[in-house]
């Protein structure tokens, strides 16, 4: 059960009681305004209690919240979208949605991972876990953007790349690597937004970018807390502790210089006001594109290179100091 949904149920209970009292006070002369005010105060307090300071583990659940806006919701909010399908070779992978679009009047190529909302869609979208043909569609769209000189905006939300037999047979590793290589090569601005789960290499394949935007309660991790716990603690129930250790929250990653910009979410999470959240993310992407569009391609690739070149956490004995993490 999703931890956030659990807490939301407590809130729903309050909301129900407040509504009752209000009806009641309408039907009868008794003045319940005090009780109502009191309840509303407690409600507000609880709201802050729950959401003001979310633990990493809670954020993991928030990033997986069943009502959290998904990739398709962001794509739908773009000014225009013309979907392009397929890897030209094997199959069109529904876990990747991509194509031409416009954002703030600017022509772009957009690529999103989509988990699917209801069960039927989840299955069709493979829960947002792309197969090699999905990543090959991504690579093709990156190359198309590069050829037409269009900026690239991606929306990242995946538990990870598909780990099935077929995906291994069709060289999943090569497919992901080919996306990273294409992003390294593309002489156009690249903006990536981490909108939900940033699941390891399967997420990074869409996130090697000039500007990385991350939603406050999204997560971006080298491994799922469950997987990490199973491997390093030999005990999947240690997932919560793993989540603490992995430094997978937006503030951690901003600190490391891995994320360039963090977008605040409404109190309670993106699902409490999807439209506003999506708008804020798109605006941030648009601002980044405005800035990046002014940079000549050569310099753009130079600074992209330098940015990732810097990211580290090693000691350089020759300089007898520890590389700063931001």
């Amino acid at each position, binding site marked *: 059960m999703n931890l956030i949904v659990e807490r939301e149920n407590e809130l729903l209970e309050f909301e129900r009681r407040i509504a009752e009292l209000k009806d009641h006070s309408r039907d009868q002369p008794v003045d319940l305004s005090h009780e109502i005010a009191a309840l509303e105060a407690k409600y507000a307090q609880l709201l802050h209690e729950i959401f003001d300071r979310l633990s990493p583990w809670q954020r993991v659940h928030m990033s997986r919240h069943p009502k959290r806006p998904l990739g398709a919701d962001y794509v739908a909010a773009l000014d225009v979208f013309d979907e392009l399908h397929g890897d030209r070779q094997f199959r069109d992978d529904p876990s990747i949605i991509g194509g031409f679009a416009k954002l703030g009047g600017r022509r772009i190529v957009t690529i999103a991972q989509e988990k699917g909302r209801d069960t039927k869609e989840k299955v069709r979208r493979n829960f947002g876990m792309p197969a090699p043909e999905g990543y090959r569609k991504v690579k093709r769209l990156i190359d198309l953007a590069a050829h037409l000189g269009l900026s690239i905006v991606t929306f990242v939300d995946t538990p990870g*790349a598909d*780990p*099935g*037999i077929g*995906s*291994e*047979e*069709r*060289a*999943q*590793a*090569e497919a*992901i*690597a*080919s996306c*990273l*290589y294409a992003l*390294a*090569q593309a002489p156009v601005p690249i903006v990536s937004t981490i909108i939900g789960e940033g699941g*390891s*290499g399967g997420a*990074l*394949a869409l996130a*090697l970018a000039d500007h990385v935007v991350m939603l406050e309660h999204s997560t*971006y*991790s*080298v*491994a799922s807390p469950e*997987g*990490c716990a199973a*491997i*390093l*603690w*030999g005990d999947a129930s*240690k997932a919560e*502790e793993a989540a603490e*250790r*992995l*430094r*997978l929250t937006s503030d*951690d*990653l901003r600190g*490391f210089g*891995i994320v360039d910009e963090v977008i605040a979410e409404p109190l309670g999470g993106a699902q409490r006001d999807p439209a506003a959240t999506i708008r804020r993310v798109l605006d941030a992407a648009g601002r980044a594109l405005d800035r990046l569009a002014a940079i000549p391609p050569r310099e753009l690739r130079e600074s*992209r*290179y330098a940015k*990732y*070149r810097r*990211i*580290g*956490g*090693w*000691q*350089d*004995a*020759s*300089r007898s100091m*520890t*590389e700063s*993490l931001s």
Partner: protein
Amino acid sequence: MPIPDWLRVRRSKNDSDVAHWEKCPKCGEVLYRKELAENLFVCPRCTYHFRMHAFDRVHMLVDGDFVELGTEIKPSDPLHWIDKRSYPEKLAGDRAKSSLSEGIVTGFGAIGGIEVALGVMDFSFRGGTMGTVVGERIALLFEAARDRAVPSVIFTASGGARMEEGMLALMQMAKTTLALERFREAGNYAITVLTDPTTGGVSASFAFQADVIIAEARAAIGFAGRRVIEQTIRQKLPENFQTAEFLLEKGAIDMVVARPELRDTLVRLLDYGVGARA
């Protein structure tokens, strides 16, 4: 020039502090370590390929001197990581047991008379996982190789990204791929040798974007780990699944080479790149 580190290391490794006997995990044969080393760590009875120490690889490959690079890059503990043990403890342990400063050895040397930028990962150090030191050393290697216009040969052996360094480790996939791209864009020649095992963030970044990709016989290679897949599909996988031979059939790699032929094969393959930047 001074004795290269790795020679010093080899001396100490041939001392009595190292076990003299090894048992072949495949056929059970008990082998005298010295002879095993002379046989390139291939079981003389069943040809099982033992995992090799990075410096043994270097020794097996380079003609003469090997000038190591990136030794000044050493691990720190950016996440102050602790699970059952702390990350620094794990590092100390691996340093002791492997006599390596980190999971990869990088440097320059000649193979069959052709100068190459050589990188060799070692599974005995944190399972060959790629952390910030491994990523930094690989990036430095590609950059130096680009400056000197020599081909790169990287032996991979890795469980993927190093969890104890979190996202900083994952970012090494991006960094190493960017460095490879810049290296190749200048017209250079990149060769990857996949050894047992190579998975996750290493196979899914620089390793699978080389010009030529060869694999050592029977090496396990893939993206997802075998256990993860079995848990996902809830069934046992065929024996040959994710083996080098399986990948060859599936078209993922150029060739499968048994260790005794590996050096000569590399010399031949490297020769085709001699004109590359001429």
